[in-house]
Every structure is written in structure tokens, then in C-alpha cells.
């Protein structure tokens, strides 16, 4: 890797140094000593903006292969389809910034969607939505207590919750799929199919949630505390942050986002399979990783996650428009994840086994 990256950046370096030295020979000697800065400069530029460059490049390529790709209606369709994964990803990003993981969101999505659809006919839409939010937040609280207060490993706890919640869904629904009886005469459809000011409601919900959480994470004391807990838990505790409560709250946020996604999904389909959320946790993680948020915690941002999720959506849509089968996107995603993370690490690589073996 080291040799390859030197060779790669060497190729850039040659041009860059020439250009710089031709433009201002003295300056390049005094302010830009040797080729080191150009290497670091190129790499840090790529790693900081890498994901956006990928995004724009991908859009550019796809727009050549398919005329419909850059049409307004197509872009809106893609964003609307990506909004469910996006809404969940906003919540999971907060959990990851706090230094943990949440693999149970897929099962939780199945649970909440089945619940809200099933309750719709029994207690009416308003009560169904309220009960669904309450129960989903309760599951989030269970995650939060186990991981925040009992300090168990988040990967395994949410893995266990994944199977347990899926079991609950199957017990609750008796293995049957659920449907809303009167599909026409209910305002419940608004969340998944409605439009507000010409924009689809799922997109609005996704955008609002992303902006809200981004503002909370960047401009409030609460957001700073989550970053502190994820970055250095020990230091956070010593500076008086109540770490357990912070971790607990991130799981409530994640559960809240899942409930919103279930609202959109249930209302769009007006019914639900009992395994509808299966595999969502992995797509959500793929989106977050594509956005460049590190799984180590303490870093990341919501807008990066939004970009990552949109990239996933556009890859899928672009490949479909080009006539490739849907599973090609998984292979492309694999390659892009590795490239994206590699670029991200290229100039802050401190890993033991890359430097010492």
C-alpha cells in the first residue's frame, strides 16, 4: 500500500511540482519545500473531498449512459427511494459518532412497520402512530440500557436484539403479512405517498430530520458531548460528561429515526411483510461508510451520511437505467467502499499492521 500510494502520488507530484515551480520558482522553494507538501496536499484534498468527487464523477458517467438519469423526476425518484435508508442512517450515524454500533435497526424497522400497519385498522391511524413510536422508543431504551448503563459490547447486544426483535415480529404477526383494509379512505397514506409544496413527503421528512440532527450535533452542547464520548470516553468522563446517559440517548435517537422510517414505509406500501427490514442495517452501514464516517467513533457528520446514502441510491438507479441487473450495484458498492475508506485513510494512516508489517 505504501509503495503504491507513493507511486500514485508520485505521478501527481511530478506534474504538480513542475507546475508550481514554473509558476513561482522562489515561492515553491520557500513556502512549498520539496514534494512533500504536494503529496500531502493532494492526498488530504482527495481524502477530504473524495466522497464528493466520487459522487460528481459517478453522476457525470451515468448521465452519459442514460438520458433520463439527470432528469428532475428521476432524481426525485431516487431521493424518495433512498429516504427510508437515509432516515435510519441519520440515527445510526449519531450512534456511531458516540462510539457504538446499531445492527438492530433492520429488525426494528420490520417491527415498527408491522405494528403501525396492524394497529391502523384496530385503533385508528393517530393512536397506531403514537403506540408505534412509544414501543419503538422502548426497544431503543432497552438497547440504550444494555449498552449505556450495563456497558456491554454494542456489536453483540444489537446482534442479539436483531434476532430477538425479528422473533417478536414473527410471534406478533403469526408469520403472516399484514395489510390495511381500506387503502383509499385514510390520511395515513400521506407520509409515504403525499406531496407538500411539490416535494414528496418522505424527502421532506428525510431532509428535515437530517438538518435537525446536523444542527443539534454541530451547534449544541449535547452534540459536543456525544462527539467527546465517542472520541475519548475516559477524557469525557473526567471532564464531567455523563457518558452513560449520552450513549443511552443515542439509541433513543436511532429508535426515533427507525420509527419515522417505518411511518414512511408502512404508509407507502399500506401493508407490510414481517421481514421487510431484513438487511437494512447493512445497507445503512454501507451508506454511512461510503459517506466517510469512521466506525471508530468521535468523528463524522450527518451531511456526509446523506451524501453516502444518495450515492448508494444513484449507483442502483444509474446501473438499472444502464440495463444492468440490480445485484451489480452490490459489487460496485464493495469496490467503492474499499476505495473510499482507503482514500480516507491514506493520509492519516496510523494503523499498526500497515506500518509494521
Amino acid at each position, binding site marked *: *500500500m505504501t509503495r503504491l500510494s507513493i507511486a500514485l502520488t508520485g505521478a501527481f507530484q511530478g506534474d504538480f511540482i513542475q507546475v508550481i515551480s514554473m509558476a513561482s520558482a522562489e515561492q515553491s522553494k520557500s513556502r512549498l519545500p520539496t514534494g512533500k507538501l504536494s503529496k500531502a496536499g493532494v492526498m488530504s484534498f482527495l481524502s477530504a473531498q473524495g466522497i464528493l468527487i466520487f459522487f460528481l464523477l459517478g453522476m457525470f458517467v451515468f448521465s452519459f449512459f442514460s438520458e433520463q438519469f439527470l432528469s428532475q423526476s428521476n432524481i426525485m425518484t431516487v431521493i424518495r427511494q433512498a429516504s427510508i435508508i437515509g432516515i435510519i442512517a441519520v440515527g445510526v450515524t449519531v450512534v456511531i459518532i458516540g462510539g457504538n454500533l446499531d445492527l438492530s435497526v433492520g429488525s426494528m424497522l420490520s417491527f415498527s412497520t408491522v405494528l403501525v400497519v396492524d394497529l391502523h385498522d384496530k385503533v385508528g391511524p393517530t393512536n397506531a402512530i403514537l403506540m408505534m413510536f412509544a414501543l419503538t422508543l422502548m426497544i431503543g431504551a432497552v438497547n440504550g440500557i*444494555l449498552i449505556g448503563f*450495563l*456497558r*456491554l*459490547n454494542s*456489536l*453483540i*447486544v444489537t*446482534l*442479539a*436484539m*436483531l*434476532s*430477538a*426483535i*425479528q*422473533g*417478536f415480529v*414473527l*410471534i406478533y404477526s403469526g*408469520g403472516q403479512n399484514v395489510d390495511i383494509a381500506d387503502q383509499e379512505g385514510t390520511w395515513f397514506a400521506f407520509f409515504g405517498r403525499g406531496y407538500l409544496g411539490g416535494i414528496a413527503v418522505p424527502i421532506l421528512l428525510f431532509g428535515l430530520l437530517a438538518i435537525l440532527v446536523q444542527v443539534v450535533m454541530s451547534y449544541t452542547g449535547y452534540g459536543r458531548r456525544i462527539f467527546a464520548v465517542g472520541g475519548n470516553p*475516559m477524557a469525557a*468522563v*473526567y471532564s464531567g460528561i*455523563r*457518558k*452513560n446517559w449520552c450513549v443511552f440517548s443515542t439509541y433513543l435517537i436511532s429508535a426515533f429515526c427507525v420509527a419515522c422510517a417505518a411511518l414512511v414505509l408502512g404508509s407507502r406500501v399500506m401493508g407490510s411483510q414481517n421481514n421487510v427490514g431484513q438487511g437494512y442495517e*447493512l445497507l445503512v*452501514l*454501507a451508506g454511512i*461508510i461510503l459517506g466517510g464516517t469512521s*466506525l*471508530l467513533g468521535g468523528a463524522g457528520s450527518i451531511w456526509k451520511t446523506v451524501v453516502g446514502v444518495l450515492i448508494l441510491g444513484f449507483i442502483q438507479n444509474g446501473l438499472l437505467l444502464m440495463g444492468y*441487473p440490480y*445485484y*451489480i*450495484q*452490490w*459489487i460496485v*458498492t*464493495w*469496490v467503492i*467502499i*474499499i476505495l473510499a*475508506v*482507503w482514500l480516507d*485513510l491514506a493520509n492519516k*494512516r*496510523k*494503523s*499498526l*499492521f*500497515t506500518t*509494521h*508489517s
Partner: protein
Amino acid sequence: MTSIKGFFRGRTKIQPIWVFVIALFIFFSFMSEYFLSFGNITNILVQTSTIGLIALGMTLVMINGNIDLSVGAILGLAASLAVGLQEISMTLAILAALGSGILLGAINGLIVWKTGVNAFIVTLGAMLGIRGLIFLYTGEQSFYAMNFAFSDFGTSTIGPFPVLAIIFLICTLIMHLVLTRTGHGRNTFAVGGNPEASIDAGIRLGRHMMINFIIVGFFAALAGVMLASQMGAATPNLGRDYELWVITAVVLGGTKLTGGYGSIVGTLGGVLAIGILRNGMNLMQVPAFYVLVILGAILISVLIIDKKLNAPSTKEVRI
């Protein structure tokens, strides 16, 4: 107990999971008259051999402090190759299947080694990508084995013992010896326990991790071939969610996610616990949904008990 301890020579204590396995065993033999028959016991071993084989490799990877989420997909690809290539030659098909596991394990390991990216991310990507490769290769079709030698192998027995169970037990023994008696095993514990110190001790960290990824890839492929021969077919979705079952089994067996601690004996216990639980509840005619809930609850309780028992001697910072 001391004699058993002596036999396993220090590295492996009696794992708490075995107490649980024995308790389950006694419980189910009282609850169902069919449970304690020779046929059913070997049946459990055959049923668990798929997850069990992968869990052997996963134990090494997790002791190293890594994780491999792509095993289910590798299993699916190997099964498809083993059945799909039989038209050309059966030997070639099986070699290609096992080779694909080794190759994909090596790719995972190489990326983790050369980029320093968290194994969770690398193998998550691989899991999606390899599943894509399976669909690409199979064209979303299921393959059926036309070679009877292949499909008979999965149900054949040596004397009264099923071949698949024997393969699983032999592999378990080999991996136990590798982990406890060889330099590679010692290094695995060292790398997971303290990476800096193991570098200072001259262990080539990246290469070492890569070898363990290759081992788990190979075992996933072997499990895929065995599953395909048992079913006489391969579907593109074969092995879905297996990574979750495997990780559950390994964690139940006491291996730490943080690395540096674990054992094959424990993993065998974890695999058997899951197998007995599924089999026993099946015999008691409990719907499969309940097994998921019970398994999740057990996994979390094991974590809590483990946390309480192994609380660090120096008091942790509270709140």
C-alpha cells in the same frame, strides 16, 4: 475436573458454556422422549456442522481482534460453484469452491493488512459484493446436483456415524491443536491480546491476520460444499444470516470480541448449545420464532453474567 484440566493443559478451563450445554441436554431429554436417541444426537451434529465449521475459523479471527461478516456469502458462492461446475468435472468443481473461499479470505485479509481499515468495514463490503458475484454467476437461478456421488456424500455414513459430523469433529480437533500447540496459535493470542507487544516480539502482524482470514474463508467454503452435498442443490441466497449465527456461537463460547481470549472447546460448546436448543425446541414443537427470541435473550444474559463475573480488579470510572 483437574484431570480434564490437565488434559487440556491450562489454556482451556472448563468453559461455562459447557455447563449450559449439559443443562440443555438434561432438560430436553426429560421434555422429549425422542431427544436422547443415537439418531437424534448424530442429527444434531450434522445440523450444526455447517455453522460449526465456520465458527472454528471465526474463533481464530475473533481472537485476533477482527471479525468476518462475509462468511455467509463465501459459503453461498462456494456452494454454487461446487454444484454449478459439476458439468465440467466434479473434482474441478470442489477445488474451485474451496479455492474461491481461500482466495476471498486472502482478499479480505490483504485489504485489512494493506489498508489498515477496520475488518468490520472490509468484510461488510465483501459480504455485499460476494453476494453480488453469486447472483452474477448463477443468474438468480438455483443449481441442482446431477452427480449422485456428490449428493450421496452428504448423507453417507461410516458405520453408524454420518460423514459430515465426522469431518466437523476432526476439523475441530485439528483447530484445537493448532490453537493450543503451535506457534501460529500462540501468535494468534498474542496479536489479539497486545498488538504492540507482538510487533516488538517479531510477529508479522498483517501477514498473521491474513492467514487467519484465509482459514475462515476456507472453512466457510468447506461448509458450503458440505451443505450443497447435503441438500443436493445450491440457491443464490444460501448462507444468508449465517454470519450472525456463527458470531453468536463463537461469543456464546466465551471468545472476546476485543481479542486475545477464546478457545475452540468453548466454540464447540457454543455451536452445540445453539444446535441442541434448535433441535430440542423443534421436537417440543415450539414455533421457530421463539427460538430467535430465546437465543437473543440467552446471548445478552451471557454477556451480563460475563461482565459481572469478570469485572476488572481496579474499579472502573463510574458515570
